[in-house]
């Protein structure tokens, strides 16, 4: 029954609209005006509205920045993250300046050059090649600077020295994560996806001697100030390990192992003092992966070497977990 009413109401609104528009047209017919012709009055009103809305828009952008800046991510908790944040700041200042400048020009021209009467003529000016060169070369120079700066940062991130890095593997699957530590031999054991099953969720080849001391955990613990080389794998489909506080993101692709190297610089304890007791570092999935994509997370903890050693000693090795149960 409600549906019938809804349809009826929609129909009546439609009829009302039609009548309003028809009345407007008939009135103008009586006044012998061309109903839909854009008049000088329209130009004045619309250009004025454009300036008002334009200013309101720019003000709202500023307002949004001040209102929501506190909600953004805190400063980076990794070494490379700091240089990314600097690059971001530089780029943002650049684009925000251009954004304001161009919009001010836009709204100003729209207001100043509105057609005010029939005698108002435009200035016939077709092109200026020198101007074209200027405004091609000038942005090109600026963008070259941006490119060089950006590539420099990219190079520092992707060509990081990993000779001293500790190793950890992050393994994603629908819908959770595991971390695997290489143990004393600092070498991760081989894996074969056909071995996945039961307690061997990561498909580790237990015949490889390097696998015996590996530890598979449900949390990712990292030592502050120590470079880490993260290897990433996936069990089923593409996931993406996203650790926004560290400015780290890397896809986990089934059939290949990807990697990302970084050095955490702030412990969880420090962050709790800064951001509040409830703060935790987190690793989220950032590539559409199915029904629980929005809830695929792993706790990340950054701590001192002693705290880490204590934690890792409580974790079972794979030989304890898998082989002793045979």
């Amino acid at each position, binding site marked *: 029954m409600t549906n019938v009413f809804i349809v009826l109401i929609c129909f009546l609104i439609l009829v009302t609209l039609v009548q309003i528009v028809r009345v407007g047209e008939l009135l103008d017919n009586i006044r012998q005006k061309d109903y839909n012709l854009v008049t000088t009055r329209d130009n004045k009103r619309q250009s004025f509205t454009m300036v008002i809305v334009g200013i309101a828009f720019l003000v709202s952008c500023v307002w*949004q920045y001040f209102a929501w800046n506190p909600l953004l991510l805190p400063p980076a908790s990794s070494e490379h993250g700091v240089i990314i944040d600097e690059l971001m700041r530089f780029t943002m200042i650049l684009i925000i300046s251009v954004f304001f400048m161009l919009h001010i020009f*836009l709204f100003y021209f729209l207001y100043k050059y509105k057609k005010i009467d029939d005698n108002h003529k435009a200035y016939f000016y*077709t092109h200026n090649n020198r101007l074209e060169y200027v405004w091609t070369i000038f942005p090109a120079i600026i963008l070259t600077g941006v490119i060089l700066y950006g590539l420099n940062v990219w190079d520092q991130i992707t060509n990081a020295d990993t000779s001293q890095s500790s190793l950890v593997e992050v393994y994603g699957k629908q819908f959770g994560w595991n971390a695997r530590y290489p143990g004393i031999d600092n070498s991760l054991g081989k894996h074969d996806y056909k071995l996945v099953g039961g307690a061997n969720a990561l498909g580790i080849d237990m015949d490889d001697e390097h696998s015996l001391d590996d530890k598979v955990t449900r949390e990712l613990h990292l030592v502050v100030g120590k470079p880490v080389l993260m290897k990433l794998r996936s069990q089923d489909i593409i996931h993406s390990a996203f650790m926004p*506080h560290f400015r780290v993101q890397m896809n986990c692709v089934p059939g290949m192992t990807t990697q990302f190297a970084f050095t955490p610089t702030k412990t969880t304890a420090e962050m709790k003092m800064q951001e509040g007791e409830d703060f935790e570092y987190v690793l989220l999935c950032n590539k559409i992966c199915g029904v629980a994509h929005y809830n695929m997370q792993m706790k990340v903890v950054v701590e001192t070497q002693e705290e880490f050693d204590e934690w890792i000693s409580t974790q079972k090795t794979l030989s304890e977990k898998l082989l002793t149960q045979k």
Partner: protein
Amino acid sequence: MSDHHNETFISKYIFSLDHKMIAKQFLITGMFMGIVGMLMSLLFRLQLSNPGESFAVLEWFLGEKWAPGGVLDPNMYLALVTMHGTILIFWVLTAGLTGTFANFLIPLQIGARDMASGFMNMLSYWFFFVATVVLLCSLFVETGPASAGWTIYPPLSALPEAIPGSGLGQDLWLIAMTLFIVSSLLGGLNYIVTILNLRTKGMSMTRLPLVMWALFIVAILGVLSFPVLLSASLLLVFDRTFGTSFYLSDIVIAGEALHHTGGSPILFEHLFWFLGHPEVYIILLPALGIVSEVISVNSRKPIFGYKAMVISLMAIAFLSFIVWGHHMFITGMDPFLGSVFTFTTLLIAIPSAVKVFNYLATLWRGSIRFTPAMLFAIGFVSTFITGGLTGIVLGDSALDINVHDTYFVVGHFHIVMGLSAIYGMFAGVYHWFPKMYGKMMNKRLGYIHFWVTFISAYGVFFPMHFLGLAGLPRRYYSNTAFPMFEGLTNINEIITFFAIIGGLVQILFIFNFYYSIFWGTKANKNPWGSTTLEWTTPIERIHGNWPGEIPTVKRWAYDYSKPGYDEDFVPQTEPIKEGEKEH
């Protein structure tokens, strides 16, 4: 040309060979799909701003299966997001935009009776229609429509066990896309060949209006890039249906180890984005062309820097082929490739900037008339500036690390496609409506439509940049799983609020459009005082466009407010006077 004396309803309206009718078919279908796609976004926005809350309207639209108790099912959320993207990108902004304006304008603006092959043109529309039917059918299958994102990365899109929509829903999606690509290719062939061969006497390439250049270049982009999507889809179909391992390898799903080895999902990404990136320029360029016309006509000034505008269109098109990797910075591909793609991507900013400067220079010292079309063209310039600038952040590989697949990206591409390109489409509809239907659209409704849309749309998409910088990923059913996103609910509510208003005001546009077709005030032949050829045809619109001889062209398309003439525009058919320079 074909003899249209004995026209039946079917040959006039259904299987028409007339480019003007085919254009309208594309427009109407595009508008319909636009409503469907937009409705989907409103449905999932309800979930995003009020996660887990019950909305009767959700159950009303989606039924008990997909919105039990009025709460959106997470699988259906992903399905809606996927279909929203697919419909708006391909059906509305590619077919709806290019299909309408290329078909309508090309023969009229170059001075031809019709397209080179009316038959192929008709086929192009009907392939599109069948593709539409197939895609809409996929909404009703039991396991749900395709849900792996409009980018359909395997293995997710190849394995129904990973997500139900990757079953029959994904099959139908692939069939619909194949038909769509055929439609696109047939159309593109026609556009290119018509512009090259059927221009009237005096219409040299340099006298073409800019929108013709844009549509010409877009057609070339399309015929070169869509086939690669076809090859990507073909291999995906083989993986899904026959069990090959082009993209699949080392997979354990639903407790079972699959037999696939040796495949690479990254291969799909390369092939997909080789189309995917030119695709967004296929969407943008027609809007750039339309806006050039509308701004120029309504400023009563030539478009500034015609040659530079043409060259920048070509530069954007060429560069668009070599930037696809910027969608793949964090896939684990070779970092050197990442550097290459950063370089090429940031280069594209240059011709884009040149175009914006030229638009501003056109407005400078113009005599600006604010028609609804002009307002949308201005809206285009504003959103193109905003969206283009955030592209500089995303194109920089190091910066992309932390914003990839977050709402920052969602904000960026919606502002350039969902705002800029759609505004271009609106501008085109308002501007050429008198030529399409012989009537004027209601001006007041047009003004209301523009202002409410402009304000709401920025209200929806500008805040998304902040969500992205706060780390919020896209395609998330809800933010409630992570305490770090708790403070963002407010922003989400504001976004949904503006989305609903912006969505509802489109009803005014639809109303205006259909009302004006039947009861709009009659237009005269050239209501905007434009110089181009389409305005020299009779209002009633006839087959073959001109009743007698096709006019010959004596000058370029932009003689507005030219000194030495009383009128503030000189049609292209007007001969050059003694001592007058062409331009």
